[in-house]
């Protein structure tokens, strides 16, 4: 008798029974999760319908617009060519963009290495790690482009602002990645070395960095790829030179879709090469690890 009562009580705590399964007339059992999902989907579809009926098209013919867009795509991707920009120039501009990415990753990596050490829980006191981690999280929450524009106030639009802003964001990203790699190393190993008289710097360079080197390399290269993409965008948005600026000029000022196509292909080629190098490096690391 007593057992039955308890089981009954448990049953009532379960949310399944709180909501009657027949609200929507379906035979399927309804728990809180699927109920929430249903409400969410219904709200979304209602909003979509409302938006479709009340949108102001300003006389745009949807069919014609779609055709024109496809036509533009055809020009961009099928007939890439160049009038102003020589192939060699384009290549040189990509090198500038790569340089921008390299410089910001290098600055970011070096600074993040030290911040990462200070924000790894097995290496630094809790108060410092918390401070640095929340500070970096704050930087990371704001997009790179905003940091570039913020620094543009002081440095003026151009490469200087782009380098500072992108470095800033790289630092925050890499600090988090690095510190998590450092935390992989067991606290006990650090204890063992400090018990033999080694000091903090020696432990860091003899144990912590050697054991996380593979991760560090992999994260740094990842950030380099991100910075390459960012550097293109910064060229366009912040006037930081490089291939992004040419893309911006070709598309925004000369309406030269063929050149836009060519630049897109060049960037794509470089991105693929970077990706291939990264994959190769990662497979090497996995073999070693």
């Amino acid at each position, binding site marked *: 008798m007593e057992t039955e009562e308890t089981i009954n009580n448990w049953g009532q705590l379960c949310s399944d029974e709180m909501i009657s399964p027949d609200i929507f007339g379906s035979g399927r059992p309804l728990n809180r999760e699927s109920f929430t999902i249903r409400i969410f989907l219904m709200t979304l579809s209602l909003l979509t319908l409302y938006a479709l009926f009340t949108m102001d098209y300003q006389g745009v013919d949807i069919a014609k617009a779609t055709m024109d867009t496809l036509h533009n795509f055809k020009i961009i991707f099928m007939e890439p060519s160049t009038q102003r920009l020589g192939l060699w120039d384009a290549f040189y501009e990509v090198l500038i963009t790569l340089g921008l990415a390299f410089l910001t990753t290098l600055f970011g990596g070096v600074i993040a290495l030290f911040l990462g050490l200070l924000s790894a829980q097995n290496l630094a006191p809790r108060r410092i790690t918390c401070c640095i981690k929340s500070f970096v999280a704050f930087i990371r929450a704001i997009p790179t482009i905003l940091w570039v524009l913020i620094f543009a106030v002081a440095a003026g639009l151009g490469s200087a602002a782009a380098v500072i802003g992108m470095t800033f964001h790289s630092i925050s990203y890499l600090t988090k990645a690095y510190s998590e790699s450092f935390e992989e190393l067991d606290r006990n190993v650090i204890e063992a070395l400090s018990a033999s008289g080694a000091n903090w710097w020696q432990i860091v*360079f003899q144990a912590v960095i050697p054991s996380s080197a593979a991760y560090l390399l992999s994260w740094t290269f990842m950030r380099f790829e991100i910075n390459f993409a960012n550097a293109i965008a910064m060229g366009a948005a912040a006037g930081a030179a490089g291939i992004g600026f040419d893309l911006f000029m070709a598309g925004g000022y000369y309406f030269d879709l063929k050149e836009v196509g060519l630049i897109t292909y060049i960037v794509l080629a470089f991105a693929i090469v970077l990706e291939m190098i990264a994959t190769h490096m990662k497979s090497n690391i996995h073999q070693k690890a």
Partner: protein
Amino acid sequence: MTPETSNPLLELKNVIKYYNRTTPALADISFSIMDGQFISIIGPSGSGKSTLLRCINRMIEVSSGEVCFDGVITSQLKKRDLRKLRTKIGMIFQHYNLVDRLTVIENVLHGRLGYKSTMAGVLGRYSQEEKMQAHRIINILGLHDQVYQRCDQLSGGQKQRVGIARALVQNPRMILCDEPISSLDPNSSKIIMDLLRSISREMGITFIVNLHQVNVALKYSDRIIGVNKGKLVLDGSPDQLTTERISDIYGSTAKDLMTDSEERYAAG
């Protein structure tokens, strides 16, 4: 202080350690150890064995009391002198605590870091003499075929021998062992304990070994210290350790204890 003919190597006076306000992890522990002794500390899990060991080289700070090593009161040492003290005390761990991604020789040479300047240590510059000593110790411990292997490729017994080599390369006066055989199978356990014993005999190094295996403690030690709930409950030679005393230490009747089969138990 009266001058004695032979001063103890290590002396603990009324050592107390509190982790929280209510219960002490170590309650008023005093003992002294002469040079070259092989000492086991036994006691149930959580009785303060590890804390006691770490208070000796100040990996854990004592709350009150005095630890005196080789005539120096350790709690008064500044950072630089503490490093110097720690170079004289080696330490061996249950989980070996090696840097897995590095080779055996690199791990062994880590034992020399305490003697080096920060810069030399950071750059990993070891003198020819240090390298030769490391190789010599590795050869003695029978690891010469694994010198350039990464430590994650070694077996448990081999890893523990690397741990011992790392401690020996420090040229220590004393080696602290925190349950050195708890993660090893009976065969490797015996090899490791025999090694520790012979090192103690031949090199005259003092050993303090935390053990879970009472029969191992009985077999190898010159002296056994029993700890329970942070209190020193036994201090004497192995033949003083009767089954009654064992049950005192572990707080249960002797027949409930797995004294004989403990080695097998630990391997499982």
